[in-house]
């Protein structure tokens, strides 16, 4: 909402020391934020001049060299405007003038001295849409009555200041100058002036000939008035300028008056050409597929959700959004039907979202005060009589189902202070209501406050408490810390611990988008689920919720790869979403992607491989307490994974994740991923961390290597060793895998380091040797292995 301060001053007096910035700041402190505040024409050092001589520039085919009388002196000014000529009054920006786009400096243009600039309205910062055709041609031409040497902005009556407010959704009442006046009046404790509704009415009552019919519950109030014999012409300057300051383009006096009243009182009006409309107005819901050509010339196809204004036969306007072309006020219009109505805000919002958001629809959406509707219908008559020489027809056609009584709200003074945490005296609280223009009755420690209908945002006592805090001033309320019974705050730090562990392992944490392309949703998984697609996505690339996080991390890999970053080890903890059967759900997942060098530095370089990512998975599982409960198993993998270098992570028999290399069809680089469904993992509970007694007796380490078939799996050999070794064998570790010289083709050697210990005694050589022999025999027999000597 753009507030013209000149317009505002019609209804409330402002102290001279309050400039536009101060007003904007003071409004902000009571809750009305602004985007900008400043002069309508933001230019300095301007003066009215008269061109007393205009010659063609000797060295140019389009420039003129002018002598311009500015009162005190005559300036030489070079000007390129085609309309520059002797005798016209112009706006001169003097040396040092600051215009919105440029600063004026005395200079020499192609050898001719130029001591300023003659301005067009556009150069003064007037938006293009407000320019009259003649304004677009060249420099502004002022009237004969303009006085040389005076301020042109004053002459144009554009010495206005404008605040562009960014209002909250509940303050529909501030979408009017009058509403703003009440708000400003409350801040500075100034009374709000009466609206002039005076006009004569004449002739036969409108109700005799004209009928209005409301066939839908989506219209609660409809007022119709008629004004005859209007004279269509240009609006008075103040009306045009106030419309411009408010961002609305002036058209002609009649159309401008409907907009002017909307700005002034907040009630959108619609004016029909009475002779084209006929004697009936019907408000109804549109028929499905009904066609209507709106003011802008577009044919609209309507639905049963749209409210339509119709004459006796067909639609003539889209209620609250846009009028129809057929009954539009035109230059030959003589008689006018004024429609002032209140339509259902939700319906208007839906229709306007579909068709066009306008100043009018914005006001209908926020809700309107029925008392203001009556006022607006009368105000339009007053202005049409005054500025269009119209004759107002006696009476008003009324359809009214609204409640127009002021709301009464009881409030206890203590309640105000409890909620605000203050000790504001009762009189001070009542003073706030008085400033706001609310009346009240005091009843002991309570008051009954009458809230005028214009304040539709106020309906409960908490709303009144907010008013007190706004006008009393939030800055005057001292903050304090709650005094509460001591209690321990709590949080589940598991995810944070996992994050810290991954970081300690050298991975960089990312933050990715959960929305991906629906084509990617079933990648990197064989799980069965329904994808969750957005009804109204912004782009197709982000139209569906991810299930696996790998597509998100793969995108990050691609982004970095495109920027020559080869060594990438990233991870993220995030959500994956699904619909399974009728259940909508989301799981917390840990995902990592690793490629390039992992360890770096002298003699320490290692490229990421399957075992790196497996190591990370093992680290996490062990850290979370799943030691000895997990295994990596083979299976059928998604087609995006390398079939021979992937594994599922199984914890106590349940599949909780997957690791592996990306398939070369996905990327030519060696990229490894890890994904663990943490919600599934955490279903497997972890026991308490407990001290285990350390053996007082020495442990014995023995190494042994077996030659086995190349396809043999280490896990199986380990199991066999473990079974044979029994309880005295406390640890098994693979320390070497070897193929090549001395090893037969198709075979490999795996070397294990075995640790033996006994809590009760020192193991003898004989005992160890017996155990080793047993292990070797068993492995050789069961695994078809051969001891490597």
């Amino acid at each position: 909402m753009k507030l013209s301060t000149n317009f505002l001053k019609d209804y409330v007096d402002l102290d001279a020391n309050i400039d536009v910035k101060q007003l904007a700041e003071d409004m902000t402190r009571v809750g009305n934020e602004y985007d900008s505040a400043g002069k309508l024409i933001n230019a300095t050092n301007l003066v009215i001049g008269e061109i007393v001589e205009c010659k063609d520039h000797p060295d140019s085919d389009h420039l003129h060299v002018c002598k311009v009388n500015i009162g005190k002196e005559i300036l030489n000014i070079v000007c390129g405007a085609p309309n520059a000529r002797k005798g016209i009054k112009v706006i001169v920006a003097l040396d040092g003038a600051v215009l919105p786009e440029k600063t004026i400096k005395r200079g020499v243009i192609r050898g001719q001295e130029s001591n300023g600039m003659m301005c067009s309205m556009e150069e003064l910062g007037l938006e293009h849409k407000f320019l009259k055709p003649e304004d677009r041609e060249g420099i502004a031409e002022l009237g004969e009555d303009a006085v040389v040497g005076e301020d042109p902005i004053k002459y144009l009556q554009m010495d206005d200041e404008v605040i562009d407010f960014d209002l909250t959704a509940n303050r529909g009442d501030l979408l009017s100058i009058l509403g703003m006046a009440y708000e400003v009046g409350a801040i500075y404790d100034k009374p709000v002036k009466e609206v002039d509704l005076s006009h004569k009415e004449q002739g036969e009552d409108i109700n005799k000939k004209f009928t209005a019919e409301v066939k839908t519950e989506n219209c609660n109030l409809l007022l119709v008035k008629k004004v005859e014999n209007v004279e269509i012409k240009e609006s008075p300057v103040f009306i045009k300028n106030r419309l411009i300051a408010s961002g609305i383009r002036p058209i002609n006096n009649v159309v401008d008056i409907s907009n002017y009243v909307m700005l002034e009182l907040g009630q959108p009006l619609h004016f029909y050409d009475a002779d084209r409309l006929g004697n009936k107005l019907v408000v109804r819901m549109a028929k499905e597929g009904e066609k209507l050509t709106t003011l802008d010339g577009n044919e609209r196809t309507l639905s049963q959700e749209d409210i339509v204004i119709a004459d006796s036969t067909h639609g003539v306007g889209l209620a609250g959004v846009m009028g129809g072309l057929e009954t539009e006020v035109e230059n030959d219009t003589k008689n006018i039907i004024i429609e002032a109505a209140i339509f259902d805000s939700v319906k208007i919002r839906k229709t306007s979202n579909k068709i066009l958001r306008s100043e009018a629809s914005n006001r209908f959406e926020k809700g309107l005060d029925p008392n203001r509707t009556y006022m607006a219908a009368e105000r339009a008559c007053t202005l049409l009589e005054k500025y269009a020489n119209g004759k107002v027809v006696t009476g008003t056609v009324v359809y009214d189902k609204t409640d127009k009584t002021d709301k009464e709200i009881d409030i206890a003074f203590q309640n105000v202070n409890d909620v605000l945490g203050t000790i504001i005296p009762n009189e001070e609280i009542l003073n706030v209501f008085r400033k706001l223009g609310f009346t009240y009755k005091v009843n002991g420690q309570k008051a009954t406050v009458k809230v005028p209908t214009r304040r539709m945002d106020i309906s409960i006592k908490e709303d009144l408490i907010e008013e007190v805090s706004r006008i009393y001033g939030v800055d005057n309320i001292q903050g304090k810390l709650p005094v509460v019974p001591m209690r321990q705050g709590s949080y589940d730090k598991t995810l944070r611990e996992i994050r810290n562990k991954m970081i300690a392992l050298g991975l960089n944490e990312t933050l990715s988008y959960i929305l991906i392309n629906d084509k990617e949703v079933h990648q990197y998984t064989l799980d069965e689920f329904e994808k969750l697609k957005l009804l109204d996505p912004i782009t197709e690339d982000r139209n569906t919720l991810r299930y696996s996080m790998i597509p998100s991390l793969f995108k990050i890999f691609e982004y970095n790869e495109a920027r020559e970053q080869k060594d990438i080890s990233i991870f993220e903890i995030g959500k994956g979403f699904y619909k399974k059967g009728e259940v909508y759900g989301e799981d917390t997942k840990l995902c990592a992607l690793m490629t390039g060098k992992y360890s770096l530095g002298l003699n320490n370089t290692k490229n990421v491989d399957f075992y790196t990512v497996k190591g990370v998975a093992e680290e996490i599982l062990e850290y979370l307490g799943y030691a000895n409960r997990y295994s990596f198993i083979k299976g059928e993998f998604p087609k995006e994974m390398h079939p021979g270098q992937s594994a599922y992570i199984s914890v106590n028999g349940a599949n909780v994740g997957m690791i592996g290399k990306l398939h070369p069809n996905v990327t030519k680089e060696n990229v490894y991923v890890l994904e663990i469904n943490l919600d599934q993992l955490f279903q497997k509970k972890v026991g308490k961390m407990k001290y285990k007694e350390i053996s007082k007796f020495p442990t014995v380490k023995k190494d042994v290597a077996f030659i086995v078939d190349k396809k043999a799996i280490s896990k199986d050999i380990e199991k066999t060793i473990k079974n044979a070794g029994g309880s005295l064998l406390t640890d098994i570790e693979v320390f070497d895998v070897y193929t090549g010289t001395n090893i037969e083709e198709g075979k490999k050697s795996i070397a294990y380091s075995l640790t033996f210990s006994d809590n009760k005694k020192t193991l003898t050589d004989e005992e160890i040797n017996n155990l080793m022999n047993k292990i070797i025999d068993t492995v050789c027999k069961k695994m078809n292995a051969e001891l490597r000597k």
Partner: protein
Amino acid sequence: MQEQIAKIKENALEEIKNVQDAKSLNEVRVKYLGKKGELTQVLRGMGTLAPEERPIIGSKVNEVRELLENAIKEKEEKFAQEALQRKLESETIDITLPGTKIKRGSKHPVNRVIEEIEDLFVSMGYDVVSGPELETDEFCFERLNLPKGHPARDMQDSFYITNEYLLRTQTSAVQARTMLANTEKTPIRMICAGKTYRREDDATHSHQFGQVEGLVIDKKERNVSLADLKGTLEVFVKKLIGKNCELRFRPSYFPFTEPSYEVDVSCFKCGGKGCNICKQTGWIEILGSGIVHPNVLKMNGYDPEEYGGFAFGTGLERLAMFKYGIPDMRYLYANDIRFLSQFDRKDEEI
């Protein structure tokens, strides 16, 4: 004979002194103290002496022997030390070559901010809670006093999946869940940080962004006033942005609170004078807050006559941007490894 001994002592000490290496030292030892050494020879020659002289000469010889042995030992140690010194010198390495690189990970700035906020509020007795990102219309809007058709729903154009399910537009959805879940209807102090989604994407808005939400519910007459809210947020903002910043509470409108306030913080860049970051106003909007709307209490099982509460919420990206001086929100989601790896150390203590 005594003279001979004295001569041997003198010569031997001189030779020991002049010896340059362990090998020569050993030769000196053999020369004087060996089986055929000069001093040993003196002892052998004692047979020619008078019996009363023998003990005198014998003790003299032993005295000199001990003296020489000590001198040799001292010299040996010196040589050993020198040898060790030479060995160490030969082992000297180029300490300016790089150390073995242990790969260092990094924590995303947004999560750093979340952890900091959680730690602060936990220290004030709040519980950290979480809720689903795939929410129902009921929890995201209706239970927060935002019935269907409410104009404020415009403020947060949403990503719906069905008519019922949507990506949550605000962490406030967790407010309703927390209140409902507390079947005892006891006081609540909770903080919840997480991802939220709105249907907008431009230079200053990301369709996915982080929010943190706080809610306190208590008996109406204590601890839940606007003054308490102000005090709490002062602690919060000063911890996150800096001790010297100022706060401004500006009345505003949110459907789930009444009264509602937006909180501005004095511009950290210009200190309030006005600059391009604060759009010349000197203030930067940072938080939304207010007193929990009685309808919200009622709809989630608390009696508004008995209980009251305050709530607040803020965007995490902006806090991260302020904290680390990140100029563009999009950097937070681009995940450039050169960006991420900058956040690889402990935050300074404030």
